[in-house]
């Protein structure tokens, strides 16, 4: 009657699903890596923007979608990473030192913001992150001598090895991919399970010994680190920074991208970044009202299809698979799983 734990252990169906996701992700990565070989310089530039914002959006969604922490202030860390790298590099600090130090500086700022903001309720938290975002912008603007004020910092030098078109592109793509993979690992870790648990049922999470506050602080710091890294990558391919990086609209963009691509899927926000920037680039050519169009698209999506673009794709595949499965069963397969 009672099953033996060892003999009846079944392979979770999740494994097979994971394999197909890995195959799709690797294929997408290879296609992207071919970019410099086939694309014009301006399209390469657009694609780099897409890649960097994809990482930014994935990291933001680690908070918003996965941890249930609505942060409107992720541009602070994106911009802080970018500015720190830019300032270090223009002041003669070696490339790699700046490259490593800048994301950690962003994480440090994230730790400060988190420790302060997370003590409040969810709504105040979202508002506070927005406030910090505006504060960062004002500080940057005020420190003209240091940050270049509204002009920003143009003409940042990066090592020759990374300044060629091909090398620059592949470097940014590789770092973004590795960072996304690392964040995925964190999501699957014990910590990731706890974050999911808190989002789904905070009362139950506390009752099994999970201290919600510190888990959220750590989630915020990790997201800040990766957003900071995305900011550093931004400098690597743009070779300039401007205060618009810190603007509150820059904080909203990764959230919109996540909604557009699907907050429930790990790479949904990355796909959202590609869609969003594609629309901005092409629809933006025809009308200055394009943010309105994107806004409308997101609104419709949220109402009609809250699982986003990738969620929609997954559902479509699931439907096809079920149809095929049904046909097989008619052909004499017998029992369903």
């Amino acid at each position, binding site marked *: 009657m*009672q099953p033996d734990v060892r003999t009846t*252990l079944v392979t979770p169906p999740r494994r097979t699903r994971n394999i197909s996701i890995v195959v799709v992700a690797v294929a997408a990565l290879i296609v992207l890596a071919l970019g410099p070989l086939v694309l014009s310089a301006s399209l390469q530039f657009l694609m780099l923007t897409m890649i960097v914002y994809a990482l930014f959006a994935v990291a933001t969604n680690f908070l918003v979608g996965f941890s249930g922490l609505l942060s409107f202030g992720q541009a602070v860390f994106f911009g802080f990473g970018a500015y720190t790298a830019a300032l270090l590099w223009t002041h003669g600090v070696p490339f790699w030192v700046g490259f490593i130090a800048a994301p950690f500086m962003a994480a440090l700022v994230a730790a400060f913001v988190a420790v302060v903001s997370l003590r409040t309720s969810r709504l105040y938290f979202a508002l506070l992150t927005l406030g910090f975002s505006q504060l960062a912008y004002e500080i940057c603007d005020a420190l003209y001598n240091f940050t270049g004020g509204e002009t920003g910092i143009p003409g940042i030098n990066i090592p020759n090895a990374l300044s060629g078109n091909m090398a620059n592109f592949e470097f940014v793509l590789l770092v973004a991919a590795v960072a996304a993979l690392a964040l995925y690992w*964190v999501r699957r870790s014990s910590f990731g*399970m706890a974050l999911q648990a808190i989002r789904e*049922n905070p009362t139950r999470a506390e009752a099994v010994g999970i201290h919600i506050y510190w888990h959220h602080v750590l989630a915020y710091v990790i997201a800040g680190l990766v957003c900071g890294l995305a900011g550093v990558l931004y400098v690597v391919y743009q070779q300039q920074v401007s205060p618009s990086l810190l603007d509150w609209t820059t904080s909203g963009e990764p959230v919109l991208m996540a909604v557009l691509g699907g907050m429930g899927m790990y790479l949904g926000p990355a796909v959202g970044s590609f869609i969003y920037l594609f629309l901005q680039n092409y629809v933006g050519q025809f009308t200055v009202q394009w943010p309105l169009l994107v806004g409308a698209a997101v609104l419709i999506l949220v109402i009609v299809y809250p699982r986003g673009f990738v969620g929609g794709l997954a559902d479509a595949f699931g439907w096809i698979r079920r149809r095929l499965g049904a046909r097989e069963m008619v052909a004499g397969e017998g029992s369903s799983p």
Partner: protein
Amino acid sequence: MIETTAALTVNGLTRRFGAFTAVDQVDMTVSEGEIRAVIGPNGAGKTTLFNLLTGNLRATAGEIHLGGNTINGKRPHELAQHGLTRAFQTTNIFPSMTVHENVVTALLGVSRRTLRFWALAGERIEKRADEVLDLVGIYEQRNRQAGILAHGDQRALELAIALAPSPKILLLDEPTAGMSPYETQRSVELLRKIWRELKLTIILSEHDMDVVFGLAQQITVLVSGRVLADGAPTQVRSNPEVISAYLGGEDA
């Protein structure tokens, strides 16, 4: 009186909501390894008492001692780590995780492994989770999403989550709520089996005295937040005050 170690002691515990007193001057001593039933009609204050014990609510007055320590003002997660876990009256699970992941999360939480953002749960914890699922009888459901389980299986999962961390004291708030008489009888048997195998202290609440009569060694009768009677089942059952205030009321 026989000398036993107290697992949990409650002195003058009181909780008010505005002018209303939900738990009123409750005294209770639960010995180590006993099954204590807190019974009383709906609204008697059982859940509020449990919320006080697990730190989900703060006491207005009174003291709670766990082992030798005062635990007033401690947060739920701290108490869980001190070996006090709970199954809620309304099922509290992680609905989009699998059944197995639910239990793994509980094991990770109480063992303070959840701040490790690089480590996976590991084989030992995964296996322990399977053993607990087996014990409560829902092992076959391990890979299903918890939210789509039948009510009875969700109750079993709720129990598994509370049980997995090997608590010293297990609080069960109306574990048979919403169950048919048959299911109720089965879960009483399951609880007896768990108690015998794991030798833990169980405090459970119930609105029907017959359900716990054969299970509990000690019964506390709660009416309008006050302790009406306290003692062995036979003693409590023959208490004239209990008969008139509680049992009599229910028959009418």
